[in-house]
């Protein structure tokens, strides 16, 4: 039997289909978010299944997560992205203790206990600074793409200090620095450091390792290093960092974590209880 997780995020929608036996990835897909959220999620789900030669009847349970989780009426249940993210990460890095997730419009820090269960979490979803959206704004301002921002930052001789706590004012600050002929590379690096500093503030001095980095922003070269520098400890980029919450949702749908490689018995019971 197969199980699926659908993560309806603020900027993208992700679908992951796994196999019951080993929790192995069977198929996955991602698309941009839009106006018709529920329909887009459904189209992506059908597309992912179709490409793998599967039909809806092959999937016995679907869990929705993310901002739009309640809009996915065809899912069997909805579980928050905090819980899904935790499980998606634990399946990859069983001894993970801290998750840093930087998505399109929010950032979160999730701390896990020694059993791999959520201990506590902090979210920044009131302001764009410290999110993927902020980096997008900056990339446009520096006339580059989001993916090339990291390469640009690597060339920085001396990262700029961006101190504004608000994305809009930070942009104004950048405009001022550009006018003062600051090198774009320094600005790109400065912005990455600014995002990293905000995450460190969210952690409030309580960082347990290993630290795993998820969300779309983890794909931007240099961000993990900026976090690593700010935290003064190694930061592991999750495998397919945008997909971990959807993967966690699929694993919760499966509810057979004890048979999943890397998952503890406690996590298995946890999943059963969450269902």
């Amino acid at each position, binding site marked *: 039997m197969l199980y699926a997780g659908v993560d309806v995020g603020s900027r993208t929608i992700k679908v992951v289909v796994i196999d019951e036996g080993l929790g192995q990835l069977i198929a996955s897909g991602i698309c941009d978010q839009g106006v018709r959220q529920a329909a887009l999620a459904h189209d992506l789900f059908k597309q992912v299944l179709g490409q793998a030669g599967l039909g809806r009847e092959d999937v016995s349970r679907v869990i929705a997560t993310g*901002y739009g989780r309640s809009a996915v009426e065809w899912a069997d249940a909805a*579980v*928050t*992205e*905090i*819980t899904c993210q935790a499980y998606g990460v634990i399946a990859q890095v069983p001894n993970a203790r801290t998750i840093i997730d930087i998505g399109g419009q929010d950032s979160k820090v999730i701390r896990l206990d020694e*059993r791999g*269960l*959520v*201990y*506590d*979490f902090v*979210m920044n*979803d*009131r302001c764009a600074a410290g999110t993927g959206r902020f980096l997008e704004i900056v990339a446009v301002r520096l006339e580059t793409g989001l993916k090339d921002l990291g390469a640009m930052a690597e060339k920085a001789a001396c990262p700029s200090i961006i101190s504004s706590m608000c994305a809009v004012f930070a942009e104004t600050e950048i405009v001022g620095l550009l006018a003062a002929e600051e090198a774009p590379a320094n600005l790109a690096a400065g912005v990455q450091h600014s995002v990293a500093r905000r995450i460190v503030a969210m952690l409030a001095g309580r960082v347990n390792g290993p630290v795993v980095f998820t969300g779309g922003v983890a794909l931007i070269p240099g961000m993990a290093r900026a976090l690593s520098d700010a935290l003064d400890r190694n930061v592991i980029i999750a495998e397919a960092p945008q997909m971990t919450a959807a993967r966690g949702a699929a694993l919760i749908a499966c509810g057979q974590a004890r048979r999943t490689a890397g998952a503890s018995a*406690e996590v298995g*019971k*946890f*999943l*059963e*209880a*969450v269902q």
Partner: protein
Amino acid sequence: MAGCCGTKDQVVARAQDGGPLEHFAGQVQNCLAYARLRKSQGAPVVGIMCEFTPRELIMAAGGVPVCLCGGSAEMVEPAERVLPANLCPLIKSTFGYSLEKANPFLEMASLVVAETTCDGKKKMYELLGQRHPMYVLELPQKSRDADAFEHWVAELRKLRKELEARFAVEITDEKLKEAVVVMNRDRRLKRELAGLMQSACPPLTGRELLGMRSLIAGLPQDHEQYSKAAAWLAGREIKPAAGKRVRVLLTGVPLPHGAERVLGLIEDNGGLVVCQESCSGEKPVLEDIDIDAPDLLRALAAKYFHLPCSVMTPNDRRLERLEALAGEYRAECVIEVVWRTCLTYDIEAQAVKALAEDKLRMPYLKIETDYSPSDNARLSLRVQSLFETVKGRQGCNHG
């Protein structure tokens, strides 16, 4: 605990027949009618701003004490024309009511009694004092110090004189005693109602319990309904069944009338607020006044001085109470509400989080918000995640 309270689809017994809860649905109107009647009979209406003000002194002076804390989001914007935007919504809303002349109780008040609690309130009272007759008590904030208590006693003696002079009455010990009897009864009845939530299957929701409070404490008609309520609620079942919900100990700032949104949100997302530790919940009713004390005013002062508000330093009493309440009410997690920019509660949240996680061994969530509903979805996510964590841990511990 799961499964002890019937099945998922069980209907709320006698949900629609009102009973005593119906009386409290019209509470603001009830209080208004009462205040107008008493005022027409010559009794002064006296506004109070905080649970530190001893209602008994006002009642003994023949006055009607009315709580004036603003809970309306609509009153925030007018207040921001005068007050800084970076100020807690409770202070702004209270002041906005004055600017808009929108609180009939404030408009009919002959006096407003307040005290030096947080800086925001204290300075707002200076502005309010330009618009209404005000008397501000100085609240000493080192609650364990004997000389601080003596100062508080002296402040209450001054208030007694002020009330006597202003309303041309004598506050005799006998009158004070009568008022204490009424208020002790009020607190006992409220404690009994709140105590129903200790049950494995509480017969009412936290939202319903919060709805039974009154802007004017000690009203005879309320006491009658409180007495009836306990019997009426016996055997009542709520939906979703109490056993299916996560039991929440709610702490932090008070939720004034109109600002109950967060409590509703917690209960709409699978929680049951079994205990409300704040000033709109049990904090003011947990301690009574010793009616037989040789100096009744000192006994009165002691009860109020013991209120574990975050303006006190240190405020160990709050942590001691939280620990006791978590046990008595079988809480499964702690949720703290902090009005944005309420510095004292926000900073003290560190100690509450440590208590919950390290000592009580239960998940803790701080909700920082204001009166605007704009963050409903964001707060729901946090609350749902917290409940998933609670259930997940239970699955591990008992599975």
